[in-house]
């Protein structure tokens, strides 16, 4: 039953071929059997899951069920969950039992979703390999000597190994799409503001956005429909109605659509196996009647440098709340208040988080603000304008999600800049606030390759429809690593 999609599982639940309790126990058993080799979960909430499944079964029995009722799911450990440890992958929050639920968690619970546990992640979502976690690295189910990507690496590894039918993630510079690509999954970063950020531990508030990691576009559509919507508790939440993304999947016709390939995304640095798989996917869309043209996003090369000013600046401000006074880690026997702050933060945060806080502090400090932060904000507009111009010529932009397939554990850990370049094709989307989706489109050297679709603002549904059309023609998204079948 773990090889089925959410849509298929729900049909089984509704037809009483399986109960949510049986389904939940099945996935809990898989977690206990396989996760010691993957490290994809930080917490497994077994008792709560069994109770939630029983409640879901009662709803299913009375006919009071939606399309996610009784479906097990894992949440990235960045989402606050009442009464459950919410660590954000950090020693700083290792003792943090959240007193409230994130809006995403609350909405999923209302939909009758059964939470299996909380997934591992790069510390405070800062990383592209899941190696910065205080709880240790996550391994890629396709090859356990390799990384699953990051920062939502635990969510991606858990779903790829079918330890959960789907998981939530967050994406600040590629943290849903890149791990989805490296693990052979479908992951969507929605339009900025589409999903509430309330209770989602903030990294860079103008870039952060939550979304689903699933095994198909149809499942991602089901999950987005439940996650999305206006939330007065998030000041940047969009006041727009949420369509039924799944019902709309077939509304997107590929025939006659113009797909743009940005020439900057197919240049030096792109692995040849990745390029080949992406080009074959383009042929599938051509066969379906799409018109494929080249476009240019001339400021693409500036996206990563711009991001590494904007994101650290916002992170240094957001992470100032971790002070060792009100919650989280506190150092032993502080000498005075400054010592308490400095040692609690110095001991509670890992090296990558400290690097980013210091970069952010520096670029915001007196004398440097204009040269770095304001400059980056100006470039951010140029990067956004590139997309605006491209979308006057094309309906959707297509390219690789990541420049290479999954790399080895430890391969890039000692060089922050090499790691930053893993997100070379994903970061510009966050700066602009656009929706983008990664879906599996083949393999290179036995490892999954991700195809990225980028849409204009609010084109989340169109991206899901395009991915769904591709997944009806291909079966890459059905592939499961041999050991986890």
């Amino acid at each position: 039953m773990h090889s089925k999609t959410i849509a298929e599982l729900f049909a089984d639940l509704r037809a009483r071929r399986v109960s949510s309790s049986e389904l939940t126990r099945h996935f809990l058993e898989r977690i206990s059997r396989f996760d010691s080799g993957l490290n994809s979960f930080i917490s497994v909430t077994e008792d709560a899951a069994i109770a939630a499944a029983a409640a879901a079964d009662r709803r299913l029995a009375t006919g009071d069920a939606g399309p996610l009722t009784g479906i097990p799911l894992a949440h990235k450990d960045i989402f606050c969950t009442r009464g459950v440890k919410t660590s954000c992958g950090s020693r700083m929050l290792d003792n943090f039992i959240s007193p409230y639920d994130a809006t995403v968690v609350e909405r999923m619970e209302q939909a009758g979703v059964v939470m299996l546990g909380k997934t591992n992640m790069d510390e405070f979502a800062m990383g592209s390999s899941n190696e910065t976690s205080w709880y240790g690295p996550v391994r890629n189910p396709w090859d356990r000597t390799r990384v699953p990507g990051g920062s939502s690496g635990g969510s991606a590894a858990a779903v790829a190994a079918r330890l959960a039918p789907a998981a939530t993630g967050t994406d600040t510079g590629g943290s849903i799409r890149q791990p989805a690509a490296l693990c052979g999954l479908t992951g969507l970063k929605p339009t900025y503001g589409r999903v509430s950020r309330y209770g989602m531990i903030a990294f860079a508030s103008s870039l952060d956005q939550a979304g689903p990691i699933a095994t198909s576009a149809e499942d991602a559509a089901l999950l987005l429909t439940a996650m999305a919507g206006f939330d007065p508790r998030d000041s940047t939440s969009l006041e727009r109605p949420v369509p039924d993304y799944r019902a709309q999947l077939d509304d997107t016709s590929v025939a006659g659509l113009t797909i743009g390939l940005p020439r900057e995304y197919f240049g030096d640095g792109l692995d040849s196996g990745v390029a080949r798989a992406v080009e074959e996917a383009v042929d599938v869309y051509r066969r379906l009647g799409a018109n494929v043209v080249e476009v240019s996003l001339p400021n693409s090369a500036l996206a990563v440098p711009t991001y590494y000013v904007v994101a650290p600046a916002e992170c240094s401000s957001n992470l100032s709340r971790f002070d060792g006074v009100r919650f989280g880690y506190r150092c032993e026997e502080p000498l005075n208040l400054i010592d308490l702050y400095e040692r609690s933060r110095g001991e509670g945060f890992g090296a990558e988080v400290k690097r980013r806080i210091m970069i952010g502090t520096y670029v915001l400090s007196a004398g440097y603000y204009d040269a770095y932060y304001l400059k980056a904000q100006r470039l951010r507009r140029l990067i956004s304008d590139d997309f605006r111009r491209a979308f006057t010529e094309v309906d959707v932009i297509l390219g690789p999600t990541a420049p290479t397939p999954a790399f080895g554990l430890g391969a890039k850990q000692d060089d922050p800049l090499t790691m930053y370049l893993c997100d070379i094709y994903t970061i510009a989307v966050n700066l602009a606030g656009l929706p983008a989706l990664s879906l599996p489109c083949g393999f290179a050297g036995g490892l999954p390759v991700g195809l990225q679709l980028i849409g204009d603002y609010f084109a989340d549904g169109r991206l899901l429809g395009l991915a769904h059309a591709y997944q009806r023609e291909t079966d890459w998204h059905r592939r499961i690593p041999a050991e986890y079948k």
Partner: protein
Amino acid sequence: MSLSEGDVKRIARLARLEISAADVPRYAHDLSAILAFVEQMGTVDTAAVAPMAHPLDAVQRLRDDAVTEGNEREAFQAIAPQVEQGLYLVPRVIE
């Protein structure tokens, strides 16, 4: 842009982060490399470009100044490192 070890110590102090003396050279190296990489921003003239702070150029939404949350002090203080009589405790600030 190259940061000296003194710069690293100053930034760490501003950020309220203890960095051990042994780690300072490594941070000086890494932060300098990141800032040198970021220097690429200077290759484009942006004098006429308006800064973009938010993806949708949205303005802050306002709400009525009304109490919408209950008092959950006990729940919040239950997870604090040190509290006494409803107060958060820190080391003595004024001698």
